[in-house]
């Protein structure tokens, strides 16, 4: 279908506002009379709270309230396990755990108040290692959870034992990933304002303004979700980290207690030690193969580090366990997962939702297999990829798929064959692929209103011909609002410049689940598309009356309703609205496809799936282990590109963020204490580290997507780590990186191991 707006390169709709410094971020938000909220955090990884005395802090002039277990009810909350509370009750379980919070007239007073709170701790042995944690005599993070196992599962699908028995070859590997932070530049903060009558307004950069009310604010505060009006502030970055934001709870509780507005802004260090960084996992893989490189079956064992509290971690572990099986035609699989509590910062979701870790392990393993079978790694993949129309081993229905095209592009663009043939001598190329959901039905049940994974949109055209889109889905900097504006503009024939998409607000906007699982373009985009179609219909119906021409003989072009046959007979959209009333609206609601998985995790979790292949070329200093990434090349299947500039931004940002994770990031826990707690010790890639990136899109025109589009956010990051590790393997003649990040030291160790 030919399009006017969709597929073109547009700047994001609030670009000028952002680059000119006009954007109001949470830290710029002024609430008259607001108090400053701060938290007292546990300095110990694991400690019993013997006594907690806040009286001196309460007496300090300027202090409005001090909250702790002493004066708040025990109201546990949590998405999967109710294992968290606003404040530590009997124990502190990680360095950074909230022990108390104060609200005071200013920051200085609040800090002084924190220093006046007396806590007597009995320091307990730290549970730091997820394997030691499972030993019979290990100390318990949660006294009622034996073995420190938060979740476990064991699934067998297909004739797995037979697959291994009949295989020509079988291979095994182990991989370990590290604790890495989302490292957005805007530290987390929230503001809250209590209103007489018992309602509370909350502001913050949040991935889901609607759901934080139901999974956190409501239950933790003993209030109804409807008591909260949550408004999104402009995003300073999230990458998964701003879904379960406890700062919102702190601000809201302090505001309720003080009956005043409260601003609760975390420092960078607090953010690094007390948010929800990407889950570290230990993955053992075994795979069975036919001699010609056909995959026969795989066994996966996962030990995932939960940290002190669970939140979404059980779902992340599931995703790690099953995801890669759907990228290749996998006849049989056996999967075991264990999620283990430790006294380390609770781990959580980050861009990829476990798939970065899973893809790193499996795609690294695949190159080991290819090497052992004497096959080209690209050929091995091309032989086994899933295809459109497939139903995977786990029940995933592949509605569109261009992963093979993406791989062929990378192979061609990188001059793969020549470079593979050269190989070794410190220079090499590698590639890796991934599959990702566009929305996940599981969240809808765990977090949402029902099992439909819904999204709603409203499109309103005013008397000046301006259009406002209301959607419950949040823009986290990924360009969601722009995507919605372009879709609606395409549908309505009104120029993009006329559109405005205000920040998500539960106070008046229709429901949306929020920004996660790469769901917004597909699900939110479809809702807005339906709403735009409805608004267009209503505009044309009204115009038909005024122009005395049947609606089906009218069209909207450049913001004008025109008679198709007689273009000079026209009315501006604004004029139509003026004559019809005050606004013309359209409504749309879209329910995601797919199903909720059964107990055995079988089913089709998403409407459709996105794909990508990343390639990397590296140079390895064989004496120091220093790796230089010479270039990255990626092919993506996002169904259809809606905004080319935005899509390119996702792809380049994903590659660099993934490269940064692979090469240098890490909170580096040591006995429960994090060492990377500032941006001096927690390294993220700089522009100097970003290599040249070549890329292209392979549009599979998804049957369910708005104009054929599906998600792009997470496929843009998943495969790069394995692509780099595979390039290192090739460059060094067999140095396999089994533990992340890829430090020079690890590379050197792997080189030495490969020489043995």
């Amino acid at each position, binding site marked *: 279908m030919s399009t006017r707006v969709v597929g073109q390169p547009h700047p994001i709709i609030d670009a000028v506002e952002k680059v000119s410094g006009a954007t109001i971020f949470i830290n710029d938000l002024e609430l008259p009379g607001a108090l400053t909220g701060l938290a007292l955090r546990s300095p110990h990884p694991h400690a019993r709270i013997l006594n907690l005395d806040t009286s001196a802090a309460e007496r300090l002039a300027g202090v409005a309230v001090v909250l702790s277990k002493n004066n708040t009810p025990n109201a546990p909350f949590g998405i999967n396990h109710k294992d968290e509370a606003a404040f530590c009750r009997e124990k502190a379980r990680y360095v950074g755990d909230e022990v108390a919070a104060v609200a005071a007239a200013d920051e200085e007073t609040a800090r002084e108040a924190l220093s006046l709170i007396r806590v007597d701790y009995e320091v307990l042995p730290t549970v730091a290692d997820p394997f030691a944690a499972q030993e019979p005599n290990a100390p318990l993070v949660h006294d009622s959870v034996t073995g420190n196992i938060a979740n476990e599962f064991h699934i067998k699908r297909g004739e797995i034992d037979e697959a291994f028995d009949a295989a020509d070859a079988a291979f095994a590997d182990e991989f370990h990933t590290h604790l890495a932070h989302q490292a957005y530049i805007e530290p987390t903060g929230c503001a809250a304002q209590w209103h007489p009558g018992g309602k509370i307004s909350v502001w913050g950069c949040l991935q889901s303004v609607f759901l934080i009310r139901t999974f956190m604010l409501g239950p933790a505060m003993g209030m109804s979700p409807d008591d909260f009006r949550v408004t999104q502030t402009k995003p300073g970055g999230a990458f998964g980290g701003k879904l379960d934001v406890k700062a919102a709870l702190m601000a809201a509780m302090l505001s309720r207690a003080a009956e005043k507005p409260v601003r609760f802004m975390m420092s960078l260090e607090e953010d690094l030690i007390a948010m929800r960084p990407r889950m570290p996992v230990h993955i053992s893989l075994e795979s069975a193969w036919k001699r010609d490189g056909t995959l026969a079956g795989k066994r996966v064992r996962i030990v995932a580090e939960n940290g002190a509290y669970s939140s979404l971690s059980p779902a992340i572990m599931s995703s790690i366990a099953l995801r890669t099986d759907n990228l290749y035609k996998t006849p049989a699989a056996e999967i075991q997962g264990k999620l283990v509590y430790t006294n380390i910062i609770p781990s959580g979701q980050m861009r990829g939702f476990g798939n970065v870790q899973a893809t790193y392990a499996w795609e690294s393993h695949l190159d080991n297999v290819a090497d052992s079978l004497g096959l080209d790694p690209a050929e091995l993949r091309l032989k086994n990829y899933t295809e459109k129309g497939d139903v995977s081993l786990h029940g995933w229905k592949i509605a569109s798929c261009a992963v093979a095209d993406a791989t062929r592009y990378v192979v061609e663009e990188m001059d793969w064959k020549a470079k593979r043939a050269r190989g*070794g*001598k*410190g220079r090499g190329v590698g590639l890796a692929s991934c599959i990702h959901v566009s929305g996940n039905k599981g969240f809808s049940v765990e977090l949402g209103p029902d099992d439909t994974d819904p999204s709603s949109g409203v499109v309103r055209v005013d008397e000046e011909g301006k259009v406002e889109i209301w959607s419950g889905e949040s823009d986290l900097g990924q360009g969601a609002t722009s995507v919605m504006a372009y879709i609606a503009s395409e549908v309505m024939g009104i120029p993009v410049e006329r559109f405005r998409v205000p920040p998500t607000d539960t106070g008046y906007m229709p429901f949306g689940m929020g920004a996660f699982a790469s769901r917004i373009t597909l699900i939110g985009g479809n809702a807005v598309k339906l709403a735009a179609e409805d608004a267009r219909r209503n505009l044309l119906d009204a115009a038909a009356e005024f122009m005395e021409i049947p609606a089906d003989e009218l069209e909207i072009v450049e913001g004008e309703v025109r008679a198709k046959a007689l273009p000079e007979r026209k009315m501006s959209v604004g004029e139509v609205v003026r004559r019809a009333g005050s606004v013309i609206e359209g409504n749309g609601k879209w329910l995601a496809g797919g199903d909720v998985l059964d107990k055995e995790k079988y089913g089709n979790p998403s409407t459709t799936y996105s794909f990508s292949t990343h390639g990397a070329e590296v140079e390895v*200093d*064989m*004496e*120091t282990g*220093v790796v230089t990434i010479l270039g990255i090349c990626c092919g993506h299947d996002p169904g259809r590109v809606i905004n080319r500039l935005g899509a390119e931004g996702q792809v380049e940002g994903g590659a660099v963020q993934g490269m940064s994770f692979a*090469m*240098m990031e*890490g909170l*580096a826990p040591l006995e429960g204490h994090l*060492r*990377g707690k500032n941006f*001096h*010790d927690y*390294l993220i*890639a*700089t*522009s*100097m*580290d970003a290599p040249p990136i070549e890329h292209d899109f392979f549009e599979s025109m998804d049957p369910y997507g708005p104009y054929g589009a599906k998600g792009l956010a997470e496929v843009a990051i998943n495969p790069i780590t394995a692509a780099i590790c595979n390039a290192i393997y090739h460059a060094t*003649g067999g140095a396999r990186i089994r533990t992340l990040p890829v*430090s*020079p*030291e690890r590379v*050197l160790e792997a080189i030495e191991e490969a020489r043995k």
Partner: protein
Amino acid sequence: MEFLRAASVDEALAAARDGAAFVAGGTNLVPDVLFGRKKIARAVDISRLDELRFIEEADGKIRIGALASVTDLLESELIRTAASPLYESALEFAGPLVRNRASVAGNLMDASPAADLAPPLLVQDAVVELASAEGERALPLSEFFLDYRKTAVRPEELMKAIVIEPLGQEGRCAYYKLQLRRAMAIAVVGVAVVLRMKGSVCAEAAISLGAVAAVPYRAQAAEACLCGKEIGVAEIEAAAEAAEDSARPIDDVRASAAYRKKMCGVLVRRLLKKALGMPQPVAV
């Protein structure tokens, strides 16, 4: 905390008492005070003392004013040609914004084991000029660092300049900073070498190492393997081994002690060969 902006060197020296600290670029001091690592009673701002900001040739030596910034080093033809290890270290130093503020004196006075400018200054026999109300003195940089973040400079002393020997015709040199990213990174290991050749014989050898002991230092045992000799593969091997032996690194978030130690040998070997224009083996 009291804040005083000095209008002259004398005014700065007069104010340097009772827990005062000089502020040059502030890139170490401001975060130190902000995060409670340092407590100071009085901040004496010397950043506007333009008379301390210069790079000049004097009596056959290079004099670098205390307030010369890392950017000034990069923009100086003299430094680029006659002190190229220092120039290269400046290239790898932080990022443009920090380089614009960071002073040479501040880098030495902060006395971090990983101070990037220390190894290249050490191999060019730097001497620092210190002044106080009592008078002036010169202190070789090799005697400057006493222990972890401890220098031989008295609290009331102001560093005015750093004097180094230019490389000259016979100077052969090389520099390398092993780091975990390409900018804004604390060195894992920093190495600088200068060989002053008399024909085929090495008249003087200087090898310095950073981030592998409590202080940046000259690896004298390694230097002894080269001094007065015709340098071949055996001498280079001996020097590399001695350099490795001399290192006393720690484990930290960036690297293990064992790795750092090993890299001292690898990098000294490599830099000596590079300085002498010898072929590097293609490692496979």
